């Protein structure tokens, strides 16, 4: 291994991965795995499910090679797949539990989920990654209600109708909050691309 090799860009690594370069695949893995695992672990209850979702994302990148650099970064691609697979596992887990609890005639009230936002509040910044602090600053600019809407969609996979039901808010209000919060994050994403 070269003593002082420069860190390769994501784009260079993706190109090498397409050609079947194991070391490039390993580098991409090391670069993104903790971020993806943190996300998956925030969505599912079982760490094994979080590992499965992360493995699915990397294997899809390796196997299908369907990441399109014109449409976004490989980081966003991996996040999208990881989140989607984690939500699938979360839903399957919830269905299984509902079946089990139905079988045991459990108190249906036990199925209700607390109203708190699944998205961390700004005062938990100590738990955030360094890179996450800037995102956190942005999240701090949105209201608790906006954060709740984004969190329910992002980490629990609820549709905006389901969020409106859960929060007892009008659907239009939920849509607006979701959009405003995502717009703030989009501005941050654009600023990062301009000055990485």
């Amino acid at each position, binding site marked *: 291994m070269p003593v002082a090799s420069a860190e390769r860009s994501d784009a260079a690594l993706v190109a090498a991965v397409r050609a079947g370069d*194991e070391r490039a695949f390993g580098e991409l893995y090391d670069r993104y*795995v903790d971020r993806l695992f943190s996300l998956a672990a925030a969505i599912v209850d079982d760490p094994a499910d979080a590992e499965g979702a992360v493995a699915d994302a990397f294997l899809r990148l390796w196997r299908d090679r369907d990441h399109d650099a014109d449409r976004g970064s490989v980081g966003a691609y991996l996040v999208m797949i990881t989140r989607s*697979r984690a939500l699938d596992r979360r839903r399957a887990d919830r269905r299984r539990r509902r079946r089990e609890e139905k079988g045991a005639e459990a108190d249906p009230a036990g199925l209700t989920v607390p109203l708190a936002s699944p998205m*961390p509040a700004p005062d938990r910044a100590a738990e955030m990654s360094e890179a996450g602090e800037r995102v956190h600053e942005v999240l701090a600019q949105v209201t608790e209600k906006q954060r709740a809407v984004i969190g329910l969609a992002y980490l629990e996979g609820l549709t*905006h109708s389901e969020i409106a039901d859960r929060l007892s808010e009008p659907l239009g209000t939920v849509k607006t909050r979701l959009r405003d919060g995502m717009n703030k994050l989009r501005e941050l994403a654009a600023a990062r691309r301009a000055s990485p």
Partner: protein
Amino acid sequence: MNGPNRADLAAAYVLDALDADERRAFEARMARDPSLRAEVDSYREAMGLLAEAVPRRSAPSALRDRVMSEARAVRPMAPAPAPPPSRLPWYLAAAAVVAAVSLGLANRQLLQSRASLEAALERSDEQVAAQSAEIASRDSLLAAFLGPDVRSTTLVSTEELPAARIFHNVASGSVVIAAFDLPPAPVGRIYQLWGIPDGGDPVSLGTFQTTAAGTALLRTSAPEGSTFAVGAITEEPEGGSAQPTSTPFLVGEWAQQ
């Protein structure tokens, strides 16, 4: 679609927060409107950032070994290892099944397959739109299977249904799958397409799910320049398998140039 409504829908679409009807309508719209797709992509980057706002956890170190070893099983990593010794695996038996099904029928279907898939595309704009997240554009889809270097196969079962047609552009590696009358795989399971080289192990060509109507139309890819003697579809655990774990229910010999 006015400005605020458009942004509402694009932001919600990226988060999978649209209801099913809204989602279908939005995907149909997006297939016709490249600027809407660009808007979606920009929100996708925003979603990528959200992953950094969750409490940080370190992935277990064993996960790395697992991913690398599964990746090696899916396709060889460079430098490519020597091909495994040939065995008499299920796919050779599968080829015999295909011959037994009816060579005449298969040949006729092969001849008709391009024309009928084009016709199906004409009839099913909506279906193509719904799959647009997987398909870069209809033009490139057509180019992928109408090119001069395309090999096709019709996968059949011993029953009349279901059926699937596979088009493989050897030069570009593009693969198009069109499946019909195939009920969606059960929860936690997915369909996986395999290309089997002459004398080699099956190569995964991707996973897919069918619609409630039993159809799928999507594009995936094979290693550039690779050719396959047999195509097959199996049902696998969600996320796909490195090698088939079940007997294929659809098999077909690939037409040679």
